[in-house]
């Protein structure tokens, strides 16, 4: 009975997905599909909250429910609720595909939920692929515009890069398997550190580094970032919002599991992560400076933020991992806040350029404030979560003596201010030509805006509970025997 309880969030998601599958068989059942999705999302969030504190190993040691996984399931559940509220009208999704759209969101979410609990390489890869393939299918569902098939190009790009990254990842896992003779992470955790510490550690380091590739691709870390701006731009606004937010939480979660295989003494590994972090931050921020399309801009800023998140991993200790998780949970909210605005500023679901935001404070004050909070949070200005999370990242890295990295990071946040301010400037100080139409928000969207504003502010002002929970949950990934 208790194993059933511990698996409750996943079961609810599965039931919801099955329900959506049935709904999608008929015609014109968009409203029904949306309702089922919202119920599933809420149910999953509640179940995750309810099962918090459960501890269990299932499926012959391949799957583990613990504080770490359940905390992430709460975050993912919250994100799912937000994404469903965000995908209200789906203005740019082909009419007949709308119910399926909700189905694939649910499937992708199942993949992510399984991912954060997987402690076997095989389950891990399968869940990662489940979450990815659903997303691959969401991208080309966008309505076709005359003379261009950008959504197809994006879908192919996303798929090709994704498959290649998974291939590299599997290759890396094969090394780890060869070295340790097991696909189970607890076994690898026990056997790998001595190998990493030995004089002949290059194979272990290479294997581990390659294994990270698939996750770095999800997180859009340089040099696995090439798909990001094009997919953001080519996919429908709602789809980009989903791709930009939830998978990154899953990716960071698994990165924490994998990177914790190394310990602070592994200088080579820290150097590798430092290089990736610096390259991501500098590249993302510099290219973002010149973007005119809002989604592309968020794409490049996402690359930079992936770099910030990696700062936590460079420390190679629990404080750093906790900071990275805190950061990415906050990032999910901030980027969703930006996408709420994108989805509702665009009258027909077309892409939104930064210039289109002009006069937003007149068209919809609530959206403008949501954008303000989201963008200032991304820029790392207190009292929002972006600041507190960045503070904990920098503290963790500086604690381990990575001064140069920290200085590069703060210089980067100073550079980033410029393009974030450009967005605020257009939305608040710019005036659109003619008399702009007011944007009417349905109540779920208004509720979502308030929810995100409250979340971003609360995580920044009173983060103690969340930070504590994360720190305590990290003890679980060291795989102490379950009593």
């Amino acid at each position: 009975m208790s194993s059933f309880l511990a698996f409750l969030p996943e079961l609810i998601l599965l039931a919801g997905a099955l329900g959506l599958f049935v709904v999608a068989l008929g015609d014109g059942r968009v409203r029904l599909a949306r309702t089922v999705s919202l119920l599933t999302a809420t149910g999953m969030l509640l179940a995750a909250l309810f099962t918090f504190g459960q501890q269990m190993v299932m499926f012959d040691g391949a799957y583990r429910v613990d504080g770490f996984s359940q905390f992430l399931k709460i975050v993912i559940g919250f994100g799912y609720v937000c994404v469903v509220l965000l995908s209200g009208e789906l203005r740019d999704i082909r009419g007949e595909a709308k119910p399926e759209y909700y189905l694939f969101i649910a499937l992708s979410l199942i993949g992510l939920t399984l991912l954060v609990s997987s402690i076997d390489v095989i389950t891990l890869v399968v869940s990662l692929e489940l979450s990815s393939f659903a997303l691959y299918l969401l991208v080309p569902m966008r309505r076709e515009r005359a003379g261009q098939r950008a959504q197809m190009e994006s879908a192919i790009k996303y798929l090709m890069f994704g498959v290649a990254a998974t291939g590299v990842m599997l290759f890396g896992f094969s090394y780890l398997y060869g070295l340790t003779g097991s696909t189970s992470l607890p076994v690898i955790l026990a056997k790998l550190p001595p190998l990493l510490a030995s004089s002949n550690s290059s194979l272990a380091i290479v294997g581990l580094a390659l294994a990270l590739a698939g996750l770095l691709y999800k997180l859009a870390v340089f040099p696995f970032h090439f798909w990001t701006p094009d997919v953001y731009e080519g996919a429908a606004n709602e789809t980009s919002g989903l791709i930009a937010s939830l998978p990154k939480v899953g990716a960071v979660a698994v990165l924490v599991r994998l990177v914790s295989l190394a310990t602070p003494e592994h200088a080579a590994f820290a150097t590798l992560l430092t290089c990736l972090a610096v390259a991501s931050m500098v590249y993302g921020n510099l290219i973002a400076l010149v973007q005119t399309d809002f989604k592309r801009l968020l794409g490049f800023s996402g690359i930079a933020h992936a770099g910030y998140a990696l700062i936590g991993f460079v420390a190679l200790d629990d404080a750093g991992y906790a900071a990275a998780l805190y950061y990415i949970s906050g990032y999910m909210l901030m980027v969703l806040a930006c996408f709420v605005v994108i989805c509702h500023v665009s009258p027909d679901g077309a892409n939104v350029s930064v210039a289109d935001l002009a006069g937003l404070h007149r068209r919809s004050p609530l959206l403008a404030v949501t954008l303000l909070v989201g963008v200032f949070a991304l820029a790392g200005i207190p009292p929002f979560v972006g600041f507190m999370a960045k503070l904990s990242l920098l503290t963790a890295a500086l604690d381990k003596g990575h001064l140069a990295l920290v200085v590069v990071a703060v210089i980067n946040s100073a550079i980033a201010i410029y393009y974030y301010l450009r967005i605020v400037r257009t939305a608040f100080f710019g005036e659109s030509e003619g008399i702009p139409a007011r944007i009417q928000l349905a109540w779920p969207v208004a509720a979502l805006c308030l929810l995100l504003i409250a979340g971003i502010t609360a995580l920044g002002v009173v983060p103690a509970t969340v930070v504590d929970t994360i720190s305590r949950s990290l003890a679980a990934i060291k795989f102490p025997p379950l009593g």
Partner: protein
Amino acid sequence: MTPESPFPFLSVLIFGPVAGVAVLALLRDERAQRWWTLFVTAAVGLLSLLLLPRFNTDTHAFQFVEQAAWIPTLKINYTLGLDGISLLLVLLTTLMMPLCVLASWNYIKTRVKEFMIALLLMETTMIGVFSALDTILFFVFWEAMLIPMALMIGVWGGPRRVYASLKFFIYTMAGSVFLLVALIALRLQTGTFSLPDTMGHPLSAGFQSWVFAAFFISFAIKVPMFPFHTWLPAAHVEAPTAGSVLLASILLKMGTYGFLRFALPITPLAAHTFGPYVMWISVVAILYGGFAALAQTDLKKLVAYSSVSHMGFATLGIFALNTGGIEGATLVMINHGITTGGLFMVVGLIYERLHTRDIGAAAGIGKQMPIFAFCYGLFCLSSLAFPGTNSFIGEFLVLAGGLKVSKLLILCAVPGIVAAAAYNLRMLQKLAWGGTDNPKHPPLADLNFREMVMFAPLVAFVFWIGLHPQPVMRIMHASVVHLLQQANPVITQVAALP
């Protein structure tokens, strides 16, 4: 620190305005919004007066202390407290806020509610900066302040408001990122984010130099010191009256306050090593600001450059590192808040009536508005440090303190003082008596009741501090003496440096 205060005065002062925002958001009528904001700021002002009789001037210890764990995992606490210096700055803030609301009464015609929300949020962050005793808490308020201020300039400002707002934001932000790194580095050296515990913690000379450099960049931009001052004229000119007043009266003080609260007690060795250079930069600022002001025809720009010059006196006094210098500098900070705040209100009033800030176009308006001319003249005299007005005492103490350090230095600053007399008297002469038959003037109304209420406290303080500064000096004295005790024992080490 003294034991915790039984009533959380500071928290109420800080978050009172936020509570005011919650109510304000529900009000629909613009009149009601203005009155409510005035009520909230006046209530906060009256509450802050309650601090005065409860403040013990005999001790340097932080008083009205409040402490609570904020983020235990990162060892960040919610710690508040005041000493003599910060008490004066908090009182200055709570005094200026109702006046700012009055100054925006008719000036702000669009989006009144949003403007008032921005004003109240500013008050929260400003009081927060002056009363925070945890470095991260300080930084949170310090940075959060940028958002309402930038919006205030960018939405309600003049023609080049967007440029000015962005320049202000990026400039300040670029400075504060280094402050953040310094704060984290300090935490890793000392093991705490607590400000009182960080003060006096033994740190190596090399480490102090780096931390001081970060402090200096961040605070010097805020003051602003030459050559980091270029954002100031732009921001002042474009900001609405209340924005200019807050910028001049409170925000610039955050920079000098930062030097007093962070640079001197935490990095005393570096402060002594680099102090002479900072003093020379201050003299350059005094001269540069004075002569630049002399060349302006835009009234707001003139007052803005005069701010650069006055704040030069403040930094000069701080880095003289003796009692006269620092007490003088603190007094200059208060006086500049009162006088320059008053001047910006006067200029805003001219703009409301004439829709210009050009000295030539506004010439001779004093004839039609005698009460106005009195206030204007008084602030001008105070700005040039005329004996009997508040600024005289402050600048006199700073110069006396500076003389103990270097006579040459003070001699070099003298032309700046002469320039101050020149630009202020030129402005006063033009406005009060010049071009009496300027045909372009519509019939001008003298100050109405609201405007008199707005100027009355400032006029009172100009005379009060000018003739009887002792109460103010007594509040800060113990804290300044203690500050010097923290900063000065290292003198022998500095002298030993090659």
